[in-house]
């Protein structure tokens, strides 16, 4: 087991843990607010608008998942695949 490999595993694990947390925490916050304080999400964006804040936050969550996925793909295809290639070439650290 090369040190470089350990680095790869550690970095990947930490990255994924962060991404998972960034995905789960806002989502559950949103769901809990929707369950226990739905009035908060029903507030309109402006006094004349028919769009509620819940709608805007929902869209932000969706766009957020796209961004996180893009972030993962970028790093997996770039940094992590790069390290994998280096390990395959026999590099050790």
């Amino acid at each position, binding site marked *: *087991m*090369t040190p470089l*490999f350990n680095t790869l*595993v550690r970095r*990947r694990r930490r990255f*994924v843990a962060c*991404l*998972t947390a960034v*995905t*789960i925490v806002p*989502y559950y916050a*949103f*769901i809990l607010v*929707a369950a226990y304080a739905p009035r908060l999400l029903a507030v309109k964006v402006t006094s004349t608008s028919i769009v*509620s804040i*819940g*709608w805007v936050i*929902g869209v932000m*969550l*969706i766009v957020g*998942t796209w961004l*996180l*996925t893009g972030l*993962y793909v970028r790093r*997996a295809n770039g940094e992590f*695949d790069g390290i*994998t290639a280096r*390990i*395959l070439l026999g590099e050790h650290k």
Partner: protein
Amino acid sequence: MNRVRQVLLSAAFLSLSTTSYAAFEAVGAAKAHEVNVSAIIMFLMFVVSTLGITWWASSKTRSMDEFYTAGSGITGFQNGLALAGDYMSAAALLGVTSMIFFNGYDGMIYVVSFFIAWPLLLFLFAERIRNLGRVTIADIASYRPDPDPLAGSGRLADCRLLLSRGSNGRRRPTDRVVVWPSLQLRSDMCRVADGGLCHLRRHGRHDMGSNHQGDLDAVRRDIARGPRS
């Protein structure tokens, strides 16, 4: 004996799914529904025809390449587009549209939930089996340390996997992953279903082509050998 167990397990799953359906019905509407015979018949027709097509297609599979869709000619990006299309037609168009039509903006909760599920799958599951070459989820599941589907379901299976053979014909050790991310992700149902596959393999009753079985054996030998440095 194994077949009996398979049948029993399948029956258990079926009853589970119908139970939850019944619970949903009870919550949704208090009044009793008549049994919708035509819907049930349609459902069974779909199931049987799908199984039939699968059986027919698998009987034509002779090699690893044929085992995968379009002779493994589909790139990751194309596969992603196909998944996105599948997803948008069924979930977004039909489910969410009607949800918002009937329940107003509350439907947004369901839209968000759909979208959250996918990156979580990516981070917690797909990430773990990335770069594993042609090893499928079933291969990994069938190589768990404990092949008994019901025993030891509280245990994490920590497998060491290798990339499949490199292009130069040499075996190359690269990656070691914890195959099953966590107990939370691996529900008991998943486990039992995989265990069923495992039993089929063990007793040589897997219905794939013989070459595919040979490939699988090669993969399993790779896995058993462990990483080389």
